[in-house]
C-alpha cells in the first residue's frame, strides 16, 4: 500500500508539473490551428496528433489538465463545504432540522438540473472570456452539486449524534458549536474526504456533458471535459488509440487521488 501511495504521489506530482510547464512543453499553444494537418496522427511535431481543427492534442491535454485539476477540485470543495454545512449541521441538530434538511435536499435532488443550468447559462452575459466562462461553469457546478453529499453527511452526523462518545461529551457539559466542532466534525472528516474525491470526477464529466448543452468551457480553451467530447462517435479505438489519452489520464489521476486517501477515508 505504501508503494502504491508513493507511486500515486509521483503520478500526481508529475501530472501537475507537466500541466504547469505546458507553456514550455507545448510552445505552440492549445489554440493554434494547423489547418494543413487536421486529425493528424502522432508525429514528432504533434506527439498526440491533432484534433479536427488541426490543434495540437498534446498541448490541449496539458492545458486542459491544468484547468480541470485546478477547477474541478475547487468546485468539489465548494460543494463539499455546502454539504457539510447543510447535511452535517442538520444531522447534528436532528429532529425537525434533520427532517427539514432532508426534505430540502430531496427537493433539490429532484430538480431538473439540466434545465436549471440551461436557464442560468442563458442569463449570463455573452462577452465573457473563455477563462471567466470556465470559472463560472465550475462554480455553478459546485453550487448545485452539494445535495447528494449533504444526504450522506446528514445520515452520518445523525448516527454520530446518538453515539456513546457524543452522549458522554454531552454528559460532561459540552454543548452547541463546541461539541459539533470538537467531536462531530472531526469524525465526519473521512466522509467529507470521500465525498470530495467522489465529486471531482463527477464534476469533470458534468462539465463534458454541459459542453453539449453550451454551458461547458468556451472555445478555444480546453478542459478534460471538452477533450472527452472528442471521443463522441468514436467507433474503433484500435484505429486511433492516441485519442484515448485524455480518458486514460483522467483514470490514472483519479485513481492516484484515491490511493492518496488514508484507509479510514477509503472505508468511509
Amino acid at each position, binding site marked *: 500500500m505504501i508503494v502504491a501511495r508513493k507511486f500515486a504521489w509521483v503520478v500526481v506530482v508529475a501530472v501537475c508539473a507537466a500541466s504547469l510547464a505546458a507553456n514550455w512543453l507545448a510552445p505552440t499553444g492549445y489554440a493554434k490551428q494547423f489547418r494543413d494537418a487536421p486529425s493528424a496522427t502522432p508525429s514528432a511535431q504533434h506527439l498526440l496528433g491533432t484534433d479536427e481543427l488541426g490543434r495540437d492534442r498534446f498541448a490541449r491535454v496539458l492545458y486542459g489538465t491544468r484547468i480541470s485539476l485546478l477547477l474541478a477540485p475547487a468546485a468539489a470543495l465548494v460543494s463539499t463545504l455546502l454539504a457539510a454545512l447543510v447535511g452535517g449541521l442538520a444531522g447534528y441538530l436532528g429532529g425537525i432540522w434533520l427532517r427539514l434538511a432532508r426534505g430540502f435536499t430531496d427537493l433539490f435532488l429532484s430538480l431538473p438540473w439540466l434545465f436549471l443550468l440551461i436557464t442560468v*447559462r442563458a442569463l449570463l452575459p455573452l462577452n465573457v472570456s473563455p477563462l471567466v466562462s470556465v470559472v463560472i461553469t465550475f462554480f455553478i457546478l459546485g453550487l448545485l452539486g452539494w445535495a447528494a453529499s449533504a444526504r450522506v453527511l446528514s445520515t452520518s452526523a445523525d448516527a454520530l449524534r446518538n453515539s456513546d462518545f457524543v452522549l458522554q461529551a454531552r454528559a460532561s457539559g459540552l454543548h452547541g458549536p463546541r461539541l459539533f466542532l470538537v467531536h462531530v466534525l472531526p469524525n465526519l472528516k473521512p466522509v467529507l474526504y470521500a465525498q470530495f474525491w467522489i465529486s471531482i470526477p463527477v464534476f469533470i464529466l458534468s462539465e463534458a456533458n454541459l459542453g453539449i448543452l*453550451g454551458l461547458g468551457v468556451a472555445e478555444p480553451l480546453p478542459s478534460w471535459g471538452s477533450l472527452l467530447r472528442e471521443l463522441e*462517435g468514436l467507433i474503433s479505438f484500435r484505429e486511433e488509440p492516441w485519442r484515448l489519452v485524455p480518458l486514460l489520464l483522467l483514470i490514472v489521476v483519479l485513481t492516484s487521488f484515491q490511493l492518496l486517501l488514508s484507509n479510514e477515508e477509503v472505508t468511509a
Partner: protein
Amino acid sequence: MIGRRGCLRLALFLCLAVLCVCGSTLAQSGGELRFCLHSEPKTFDPLLVDDDSSLAVRYLTAGVLIRSNRRTQALEPELAESWKVAKDGKQITFKLRHGITFSDGSPFSSEDVAFTIQRLMDPALHSPTGDAFRSGSGAVSTKIIAPDQISIVFPAAVAGLDRLFDQVAIMSAHSPKKTAAVLGPFMVAEYKAGSTVLLRRNPNYWKKDSQGHRLPYLDSIRLDIQPNRDVEMLRFKRGELDLINVMDSEYFDRLAASSPGLAHDAGASLDSEFMWFNQVANAPIPEYKRAWFRSTNFRRAISQAINRADMSRVVFNGHAQPAVGPVSPANKFWFNSKLQAEPYRPVSALKLLQSDGFHQQSGFLYDKSGNAVEFSIVTNAGNKPRERMAVMVQEDLADLGIKVNVVTLDFPSLIERISQKFNYEAAMLGFRNIDLDPNGQMNIWLSSAENHAWNPQQKSPETAWEAEIDRLMRAQASTADEKKRKESFDRVQEIVADQVPFIYLVNVNALSAVSNAVQGANPVILAPQTFWNAERLTLNATVQASR
C-alpha cells in the same frame, strides 16, 4: 443453312432475351427496403406536413399533379397529363389522366382535385403547404370543367405556381378511408409509435415501367424511427438498413474508408451555413458596436477575412463548397452565375477596416473612438460542424486583431435572443432550403419579415438597399414571367453580395449511403436524396432471401 456468324448472332440474341427476362423478373421481384426516420412523423395528413419524417412518408405515399424531378430539377407530369398557367399567374388549368384509382379502389377525378384545393386553402386547417399559395386576400376558387379537367383561380398572381403543386398530395373526395386512400406508389400499412412505419405497395398505383410492368417494384418499405445516427450507421454497416438519406461528413468519411462504393457525395446541396451581425436599432448592445455592425465596410471586411476554403476542407473534410450567396450553385435555374464566393483576402479586409477608421495597435484592432474590436458569435450547442466553423472564424479574425468569443446556447435560448430580445452581437446558423423557387425566401428578404434576421419586422425599410430588395422580391412574386423573375432575383443576389447582411460561409454537400443490395438508386442533392425514385428501386435476390 445458318452460317457461323448467324449462329453467333442467334446465340447473342438468345442470351440477351434471357437476360431481359431475368432482368424483368428481378425488377418485379419485390422485397422490403429499410431505412431510418430520425424522428416520429408528426402527422399522416399530407396537407399538414411540416417535419422531415412526415415529408418522407408523404413523398412515398402521395400522388401529385406535377412532380419536380429531383435529378433534372424540371417539372414532369404525374396525375396531370398536362397543365397551363395563365399569363397573369392567377390561374392554372390541369388535364388529368384517365383510369386512375386510389389505393382503396375509388376513382380519381377532378372532384378530388377540387376537394384537395378547398381543404388545402381552408384557413381553419392551417396547412403549411397551403401557405405557399396565399398570394393575396380573397378566396381560391376551383372550376370543374370536365371529370378530367379542372381550373384553379387564385385572387392574385402566385409566382412559380406550377412548381408548388409538387407538394400537394391529392386526396379522395369520396373515399371513407380519407387520408389513408392514396395515389402514390406506397400506402401506410402499419404504424408503431416510436418504432416503425411500414409502407406497402399500392396495388392500384397507376404508373408502369417501359415494359408495361406496374410500379413500384418493391413490396414494402420499412421506416425505422431512430434518432441516433451512430446506431443508424452501425445498422447500415451490418446490412440491416439499405439507405442513409443524409449523413454528416465525419460519418461519410468513415464509411467511405471502409466501403467506398456505398458512400455517395452528390455535390453541393441547397443548404447553406452563414453568420450575420445584429443591426436592430433598439437592440441592447453598445452604440459603438451597432455602428460597426451597420457599416457595410465592416461586414465586407469580416467576410473577406474568413477563409471559406479552409472551412470546407477542415470542418467538412472537403464535403462542402465555399458559399456564394443566398442561392446555392446547385439551384440550376435561380443561381446568379455572375457571382463568386468571396475569396480569403485578409489584407484587403484590413484596408477596408482602415477606411472606416479602425486601426491596429499591439496586435489588437481598435475603432476610431479607441474601442477594442471584440464581439461574440452565438450558435446552437451540440452542432459540431457549426461550433468548429465558429472557432475557425475566431482564429481568422484574431489575425486582424479582432477578439471573438464563441458562445454556444441551447436552441430555445438562442432563438429567444436572436428573434425576441435581440440580445446578441453576431449569430451563426444554417439555412435548410428545400424550395428551389425564391418565393420560399420571401420571409427572409422582405424588411418587414420576421425572419429578416439582421433587422426584422421593420415598419419601413431602414436602408435604401433593403427598400430595393423589397421592391425586387415583390416584383418577382407578382409575375408569372420566369425571365423577369430571374432578372429581379439575380439583382437581389447581387445586392446581398454587395451589402453582406448575411456572411455566407459554405454550402454543405449532399452526402448519403446506399447499400449494394439496392439497385437503381441515384442519390441527388434535393430531398429525398436517396429514395426520390423509390418506385423504381429494387433489391437483389440475396438480400430478399435473407429477410
